[in-house]
């Protein structure tokens, strides 16, 4: 079968790969309907997460129909239309039982890599390097889904494929940020990044009762999407001084909750960006934490800063003094989607969560390299390139 693969740094290919087979009793084989690019893929494409092998199949945000079920699967049958959470989590260990699914003890078959990097391993993720398990990704006609009773969710009738697709990763990641940051009714919430995850974090915060939600970015089309489809306010960081604007909007206090949905390749105007870029390229830091720094600086005293964008290793000039002296709560997580997806699908069926606008460019798998190029360079207003393997 054809699949979109990582061939090397900034080199995406389309190759013939073997079809997946059932290896564990709890597996299903899914016929992929739609598979989205994600901002976190760009860290793999750019070589910032150096645990990819040439030939690895990309993609971790997907939906489709069940094509085959393992003997241990009880909740799904052939033909079911499902969306699959991007993390592989067993559902049985203590972390999963606490609802902290991305921290699963058992879902990463290569625990030694992240254990060496972070002290302990976490769960696995499809198409996201050998550090995260070496799972084949979803930019292919078929994908193997382990722990299917835990990670695949039936899509309600009336929810389109195009909407349900983003219940795989963008929406539950956004929900993870807003919920784990403990957004409360009446809060003012600032979200850095107006990509799919940032938009969904903003929507989640609104549905959790936030009084005011502000999303920060520099791309006009993404900020327009925030205003039109999410209903939140926006700030263009190339046009205004973000901390000053946030202070003005909050009576001088700063936002109660600051959610960073940018990650390790953050951009900012001015010399700070050059400094971080040079240090990152020289491997004196692995990640550029620009947005996190600003969130910590902007957050109100005693507030919460949540790192929802993907970071891999170490950063420089981290404002620990502000964290300590302002009594901030600093949290972060990969998505615990298993606990949020049922609610998200229900809200999607009630039109409370809409995501179709994120799929700005839908194309066949053969256009994989073009799709990643458009997504990376934000060409033609690309917010997400989405692949339809059957096209």
């Amino acid at each position: 079968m054809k699949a979109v693969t990582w061939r090397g740094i900034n080199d995406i290919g389309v190759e013939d790969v073997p079809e997946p087979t059932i290896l564990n009793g709890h597996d299903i084989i899914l016929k992929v309907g739609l598979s989205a690019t994600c901002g976190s893929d760009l860290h793999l494409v750019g070589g910032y997460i150096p645990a990819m092998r040439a030939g690895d199949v990309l993609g971790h945000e997907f939906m489709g129909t069940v094509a085959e079920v393992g003997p241990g699967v009880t909740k799904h049958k052939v033909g079911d239309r499902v969306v699959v959470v991007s993390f592989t989590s067993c559902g049985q260990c203590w972390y999963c039982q606490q609802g902290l699914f991305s921290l699963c003890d058992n879902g990463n078959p290569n625990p030694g890599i992240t254990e060496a990097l972070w002290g302990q391993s976490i769960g696995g993720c499809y198409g996201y390097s050998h550090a995260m398990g070496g799972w084949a990704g979803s930019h292919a006609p078929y994908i193997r889904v382990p722990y299917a009773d835990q990670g695949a969710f039936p899509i309600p009738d009336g929810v389109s494929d195009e909407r349900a697709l983003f219940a795989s990763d963008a929406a539950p990641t956004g929900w993870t940020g807003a919920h784990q940051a403990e957004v409360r009714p009446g809060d003012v919430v600032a979200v850095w990044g107006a990509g799919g995850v940032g938009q969904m974090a903003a929507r989640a915060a609104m549905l959790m009762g936030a009084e005011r939600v502000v999303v920060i970015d520099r791309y006009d089309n993404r900020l327009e999407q925030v205003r039109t489809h999410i209903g939140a306010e926006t700030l263009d960081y190339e046009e205004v001084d973000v901390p000053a604007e946030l202070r003005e909007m909050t009576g001088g206090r700063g936002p109660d909750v600051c959610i960073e949905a940018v990650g390790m390749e953050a951009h900012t105007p001015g010399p700070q960006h050059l400094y971080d870029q040079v240090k990152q390229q020289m491997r004196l830091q692995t990640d550029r934490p620009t947005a996190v720094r600003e969130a910590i600086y902007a957050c109100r005293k005693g507030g919460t800063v949540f790192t929802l964008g993907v970071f891999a290793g170490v950063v420089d000039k981290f404002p620990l003094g502000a964290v300590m002296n302002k009594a901030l709560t600093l949290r972060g997580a990969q998505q615990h989607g298993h606990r949020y997806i049922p609610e998200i699908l229900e809200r999607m069926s009630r039109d409370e969560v809409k995501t179709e606008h994120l799929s700005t460019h839908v194309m066949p798998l053969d256009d994989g390299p073009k799709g990643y190029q458009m997504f990376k360079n934000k060409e033609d207003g690309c917010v997400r390139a989405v692949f339809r393997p059957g096209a």
Partner: protein
Amino acid sequence: MTSSTGKVAADAVHAGGTLVRQVRSAIDRSAGRPAGAGQPASGWLVVTVLCEPSGIDTAELPAPLAELGDRIEVRVRPAADGKGTELAARLTDGGSSGTALQRLSGSDAQSDLRSALRRAKQLIEVGEVLAVDPAPHGERTATPGGALLEAWTRVAPRGGVR
């Protein structure tokens, strides 16, 4: 932005740094201890399994541990705050750590024990051991970085237990 060639070189340096730490830890077990990469002086390796203590019969251990026979001793006790049961094991010969080459390749006795504990935990909690290979993939172009990663990936499944 540097060129792709420069970036590959930088990545190799970065990966090399991590590998150097791994190699140092493998050659000199004490080297990794300050960062927590070594093993406790007692030799016990422990996983917490989400089950009642009665769910682990030390006389009838899960197959991965049972296969190690009298090479290991096993201890079971309740975990704090209802987090399950602590399943600990250590080598009866006092924790012979094998040669540096064996440790680097993950073929030393400690790696065997780590792997057995992790698989035993999966069998108790999930009922089967998670498999990833063979995973579909395209052509594996031969590169130095790829070879390093492949070697690390061969050892990585034998981690996951501190």
